[in-house]
């Protein structure tokens, strides 16, 4: 017998080859996440070992990496600024996004719905740097004249821009959360004589609660991670903001503004990578939590 009828042929080997290839590509996401951590950690390691004073890093508002006599590396002011902007942005973004999501999911139909979703997609498509430019050239003079303040760059401007940037993603996740609520719930409520709003308020919103929470969290993650727009909208001065018109500086923006001026391997260069590690962990935590919440919903 020359060839057994169960012999492995060309197709069998091609199949095995591609299965292995797809597997290697499949795990690439893991490789890259680990790689990002390792490489950013590697570059920042020198700072963490030699120069890092944990108390100063987290609790000092003074970021003076270039000071000749006594460089200080405190990120408190930046964390405070970023947090303030993120909170304000979410406070603006969440109600509108969830309202918009309710309209799209529960009220709009057919063509209207399509067009609305396209417009929201357009909102999501505008690049970060263009938002920054809008903050600088349109919002800045607008805030100055409206509130009669000397400068329009700062917490308010950044928060408004960030709210608009986060709106599409929050809207679309919230809409998904509403769509995930089974129609039988709505029908049951309406069979009991509830109006559409009562149904939404008493049935759909509670059922979509976790989805909305994770939408909010992802918005927060976006706020912490946003770079170019905040760099341009914040005014970029190191300062714990006390009013919405105060200028501040974001963690991300610090890296973006200073990395180009540092020498590879210098403590300043390494300290920027240390900020990167911090950002990586913060967003990692936020994303994991958001994912965990969403998955909790799907299982339950």
């Amino acid at each position, binding site marked *: 017998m020359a060839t057994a009828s169960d012999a492995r042929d060309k*197709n069998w080997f*091609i199949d095995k080859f*591609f*299965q292995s290839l*797809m*597997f290697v*590509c*499949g*795990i*690439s*996401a*893991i490789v*890259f*996440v680990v*790689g*990002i951590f390792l*490489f*950013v950690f590697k*570059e920042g390691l020198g700072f963490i070992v030699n120069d890092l004073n944990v108390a100063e890093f987290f609790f000092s508002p003074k970021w003076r990496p270039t000071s000749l006599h006594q460089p200080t590396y405190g990120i408190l002011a930046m964390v405070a600024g970023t947090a303030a902007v993120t909170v304000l942005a979410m406070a603006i973004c969440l*109600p*509108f996004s969830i309202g*918009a999501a*309710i*309209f799209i999911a529960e*009220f709009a139909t057919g063509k209207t719905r399509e067009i609305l979703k*396209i*417009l*929201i*997609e*357009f909102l999501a*498509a505008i*690049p970060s*740097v*263009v938002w*920054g*430019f809008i903050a*600088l*050239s*349109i919002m800045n003079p607008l805030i100055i004249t409206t509130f009669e303040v000397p400068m329009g760059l700062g917490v308010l401007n950044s928060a408004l821009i960030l709210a608009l940037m986060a709106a599409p993603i929050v809207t679309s996740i919230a809409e998904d959360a509403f769509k995930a609520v089974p129609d039988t719930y709505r029908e049951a409520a309406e069979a009991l004589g509830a*109006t*559409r709003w009562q149904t939404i308020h008493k049935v759909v919103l509670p059922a979509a609660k976790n989805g909305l929470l994770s939408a909010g969290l992802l918005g927060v*993650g976006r706020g*912490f*991670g*946003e*770079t*170019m727009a905040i760099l*341009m909208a914040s005014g970029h001065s190191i300062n714990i903001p006390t009013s919405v018109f105060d200028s501040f500086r974001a963690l991300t923006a610090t*890296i*973006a503004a200073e*990395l*180009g001026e540092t020498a590879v391997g210098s403590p300043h260069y390494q300290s*920027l*990578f240390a900020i*990167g590690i911090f*950002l*990586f962990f913060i*967003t990692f935590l936020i*994303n*994991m939590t958001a994912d965990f919440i969403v998955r909790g919903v799907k299982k339950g």
Partner: protein
Amino acid sequence: MFEATSINHHNDQVQLRYKIVFGVMLVILIIPVVAILFTLIAKGSHAMSWPFLFDDPKDGMTAGGIFPAIFGTIWLVVVSLLASVPLGVAAAIYLSEYAPDNLLTRLINLATINLAGVPSIVHALFGVGAFVVFFKFGTSILAASLTLAIMTLPVVIVSSWESLQSVPRAFREACWNMGATRWQTIWHVVLPNAFTGILTGVILQVSRAAGETAPIMFTGAAMFLPFLPNSVFDQTMALALHLFVVATQVPDVPESLPFGVALVLVGIVLLMNTVAIWIRMHLRGKKKW
């Protein structure tokens, strides 16, 4: 009877009121898009001309055109696509067609979500640490494009996965039953039918990559270069970074110039989005099963 209709009427009114409230909230989100577009067009169209699109910048970037930036953005996007599309589609194929329901698959999904959530500036740090310093690509199109590719990879994976999942399982079963290997099934039946969806995702990714600034500013994009890049090991100008530069770094820029750059950038991005949307609608109109 009369009572009931009056309650219904009241309820209808309440419902209408809520509909209006939510509608207004939505409109408030949409107004900025429209307003931004109109402002960009109003203020940027003065700058628009053939020389603006096809000349080099002049007088310290306060005049002249933006051709090197457009050209550079095309380079960056094309090279990043060459890396991210095959890798991302293959990863999606693994997740959709091969991956068993186990811990590793769960980890891959978590990693994909995280990769999408890593801030763009951290991607930039990774690009510097890995491609510029460790692999010694220097600041180059290659380093910048690879950084962009990794950043946009999750988008490709997720959108391709969705397209692959939209192909009915019965088609796969039919193929397996006739003795087709898994790969033959994927190549001859699944991929061709997921192609339009994957293409839509890729186009959206083009639009995203074209607009990114942070990941390229330290890895390969230069503020100003007097020449066009010849290879992937050269630096290049890029549209998004150019907007940042003329808006913040260069003194005495006429107002119309950054608006012109922003208009071109937003124009490209929205054009890509429109194409993607058109393909999606066209696809929906043409049923194949």
